[in-house]
C-alpha cells in the first residue's frame, strides 16, 4: 500500500508548490519534468511553457551568461555522473532582471535499479542573507583596521577573579606583552605593585557601584617602564545582565604629557626672559657706575691691601656684568637674520673658535661625520655658531679625563638638517635632564645655567628642535633639527 493517501499527496503537492524555494525536477536528458511556483515566478513563464524545456535555458534565458551556466552544468553533471548530491551557489536573474544569489541543492534521483532517473534542484534565495553577512564582515574589517591604526589605545577585559580574559586591539602595542604571554594572568601585572594593591580594587568597586570609572593613572609595560594613561573601566555584562567582568580601555597619553610639559616650559621660559630683560637693564646702570668708579680708583695711588680689595671688587663686578650680558642674550627677542647657511661649513667654522675659550687640558679627539647631501638651512650664522660653541664647550667640560666628541650631520628626509654632538663624558643625571634647558639650571659648579637655555631659544627661533639624551658615565648626545630653506 502506498504510504500516501490522495489527500496527503495533495497536501504535499501544495506545500512543495508554495514553498519559498526554487524547485525543478528534470530528467536524465536535462528536460524539465516539473517545477514549483517560485520557478514560474522567476522565469516569468507558466509551468506549461517550462515543462519540456532544457533546465539551463529555463534558469538562464539570457545566452550571454554562458560562464555562469557552464559552471552550474559542470557541477550538476558531476553530481549525475557519480550519483551523489552536491551544492552550488550561483547568480540568476529574476523576472524583473534583478540578480539573485541562489544556493542550490543538487540531488540525483535514481531508479530502483540504480540508474539516473532525473535531478532535483532545490534553490534557496540567499541574496539578502549574503548581503548582510558581507556588510557585517566589512564592518568588522573596518573596525579592525581602525583599531589597529589607533596605537595608543589598549582594550582588554578581566573576569571577576581579576584574570585577563580578553587582550585585544592595541594592547600588545601599548603594553609590550604578547597575547599568549599575558592571557589569564592577573590584571595587577599591568599596574605598579602599589596600585595593584590599592587603586585597582578601588576602581573595580567604583565600577560595580556606578557602572563606569575614568581616571588618569600610570600603568606598567612589560619592560617595567611606567607610562601615563587615561583609564576607562566599564562593567562587562552577560546576556542576562549579570556582571561577568570589567572592560578596560587604556589610552596612552605619554605624547600628550610630553607636549603639555613642553608648552609649560616654553611659557615659563618666555616669562623668565621678560623678567630677565627688565632686570638686566636695571642692573646695568648701577653696575656701570660701580665698574667705572673702580676703574677710576685703580688709576690712583693706594696701599697694596686696598688695591688688592679693589681688584677683587672689580673682578666680581665683571662677573655680574657677564651674567647680565648672558641674561640679555637669553631674552633677546630679535628674530634671527635669515640667510642661507651650510650647516657643514658652520660646524667647520666653529672648531677654530673653540681655542679662544678656556678648555680643560685633557686630550679630546673630535670625529666628524658630515653628510654629503646637505641643502642649506635658513638661519643666523652668529647665533648658530654660538649654539655649536656652547654645546662643544659643554662636551669638553664633561670630559676632564679626555675622551671623544663626535659631530654628525644628517639629511632627514630632505626636510631637516639633523646635527648630533656626542661626547663620552660623565653624562647627566636622569633627574636633571628635564630641567637642562631651563635658565639658571646648571650642573656645573660655576655654571650660570644660561648657556643651554640660550641655545634652546636660538634653535626655537629658527623653528627647529633641540633634544638631549644622556647616560651617566657613558656620555651625552645633543640632537638638533633645523628645517631646510
Amino acid at each position: 500500500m502506498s504510504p500516501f493517501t490522495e489527500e496527503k499527496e495533495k497536501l504535499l503537492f501544495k506545500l512543495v508548490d508554495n514553498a519559498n524555494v526554487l524547485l525543478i525536477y528534470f530528467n536524465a536528458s536535462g528536460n524539465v519534468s516539473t517545477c514549483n511556483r517560485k520557478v514560474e515566478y522567476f522565469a516569468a513563464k507558466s509551468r506549461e511553457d517550462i515543462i519540456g524545456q532544457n533546465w539551463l535555458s529555463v534558469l538562464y534565458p539570457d545566452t550571454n551568461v554562458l560562464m555562469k551556466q557552464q559552471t552550474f552544468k559542470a557541477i550538476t553533471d558531476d553530481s549525475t555522473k557519480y550519483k551523489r548530491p552536491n551544492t552550488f551557489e550561483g547568480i540568476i536573474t529574476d523576472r524583473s532582471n534583478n540578480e539573485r544569489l541562489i544556493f542550490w541543492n543538487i540531488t540525483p534521483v535514481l531508479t530502483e535499479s540504480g540508474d539516473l532517473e532525473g535531478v532535483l534542484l532545490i534553490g534557496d534565495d540567499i541574496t539578502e542573507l549574503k548581503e548582510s553577512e558581507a556588510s557585517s564582515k566589512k564592518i568588522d574589517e573596518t573596525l579592525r583596521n581602525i583599531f589597529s591604526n589607533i596605537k595608543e589605545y589598549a582594550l582588554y577585559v578581566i573576569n571577576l577573579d581579576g584574570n585577563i580574559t580578553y587582550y585585544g586591539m592595541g594592547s600588545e602595542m601599548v603594553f609590550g606583552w604578547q597575547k599568549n604571554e599575558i592571557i589569564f594572568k592577573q590584571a595587577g601585572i599591568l599596574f605598579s605593585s602599589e596600585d595593584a594593591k590599592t587603586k585597582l580594587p578601588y576602581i573595580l568597586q567604583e565600577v560595580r557601584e556606578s557602572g563606569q570609572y575614568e581616571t588618569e593613572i600610570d600603568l606598567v609595560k612589560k619592560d617595567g617602564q611606567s607610562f601615563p594613561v587615561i583609564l576607562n573601566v566599564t562593567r562587562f555584562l552577560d546576556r542576562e545582565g549579570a556582571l561577568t567582568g570589567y572592560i578596560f580601555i587604556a589610552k596612552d597619553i605619554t605624547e600628550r604629557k610630553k607636549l603639555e610639559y613642553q608648552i609649560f616650559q616654553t611659557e615659563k621660559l618666555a616669562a623668565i626672559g621678560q623678567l630677565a630683560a627688565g632686570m638686566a637693564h636695571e642692573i646695568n646702570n648701577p653696575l656701570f657706575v660701580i665698574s667705572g668708579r673702580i676703574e677710576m680708583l685703580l688709576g690712583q695711588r693706594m696701599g697694596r691691601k686696598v688695591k688688592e680689595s679693589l681688584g677683587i671688587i672689580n673682578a666680581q663686578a665683571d662677573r655680574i656684568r657677564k651674567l647680565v650680558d648672558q641674561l640679555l642674550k637669553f631674552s633677546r627677542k630679535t628674530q634671527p637674520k635669515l640667510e642661507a647657511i651650510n650647516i657643514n661649513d658652520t660646524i667647520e667654522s666653529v672648531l677654530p673658535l673653540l681655542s679662544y675659550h678656556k678648555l680643560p687640558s685633557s686630550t679630546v679627539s673630535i670625529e666628524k661625520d658630515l653628510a654629503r647631501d646637505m641643502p642649506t638651512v635658513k638661519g643666523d650664522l652668529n647665533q648658530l655658531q654660538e649654539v655649536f660653541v656652547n654645546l662643544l664647550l659643554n662636551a669638553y667640560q664633561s670630559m676632564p679625563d679626555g675622551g671623544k666628541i663626535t659631530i654628525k650631520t644628517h639629511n632627514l628626509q630632505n626636510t631637516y638638517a639633523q646635527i648630533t654632538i656626542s661626547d663620552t663624558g660623565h653624562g647627566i643625571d636622569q633627574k636633571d635632564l628635564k630641567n637642562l634647558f631651563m635658565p639658571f639650571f646648571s650642573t656645573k659648579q660655576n655654571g650660570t645655567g644660561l648657556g643651554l637655555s640660550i641655545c634652546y631659544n636660538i634653535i626655537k627661533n629658527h623653528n627647529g628642535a633641540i633634544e638631549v639624551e644622556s647616560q651617566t658615565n657613558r656620555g651625552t648626545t645633543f640632537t638638533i633639527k633645523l628645517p631646510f630653506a
Partner: protein
Amino acid sequence: MTYKVLVVDDEAPVRELFRDLLKKEKCTVKCVPSAENALYLIEKEDFDIVLLDIKLSGMSGLEALKKIKGLKSDQIVIMITGFGYDEELIAKSREYGCSGYIGKNMPISQIISSFKLFAKTAQERKKLKK
C-alpha cells in the same frame, strides 16, 4: 685730541661717571638729565659730541636724536644703551643718524676706546664734508 662733550642721562651717578671718565681723557664735559635740557643747550652752544642715553624719562632718546639732527644736521651723536646689543634699537638710531652706540654693559676700558674711535671717525667725516 680733546672734545667738548654733552652727556644726556637721567641718572645722576651715570652722568657724573661719564663726566669724570671723559675729563680724564681731557674732554670738556657738560651734563644734563633730560632730552629737553639737551635740546635747549645744543641750540645755544656747540658740542663736538653728544652722548645720549637711549632710555630717558620724558622725551625718549630716539625722539631726542631726531630733534637734535633736525636742529643741527651734522651734530655727532653717540647713543648709550643699557639694553646691551639690541639690533632693533641700534638700527633705528642709525636710521636717525647716530654715529655709534656704547653699551653700559661693556667693560669700562672698551667703553672709553669705543667712544674715542666713534668720535674720531665722526669728526674726520665731518671735516671731509666741509
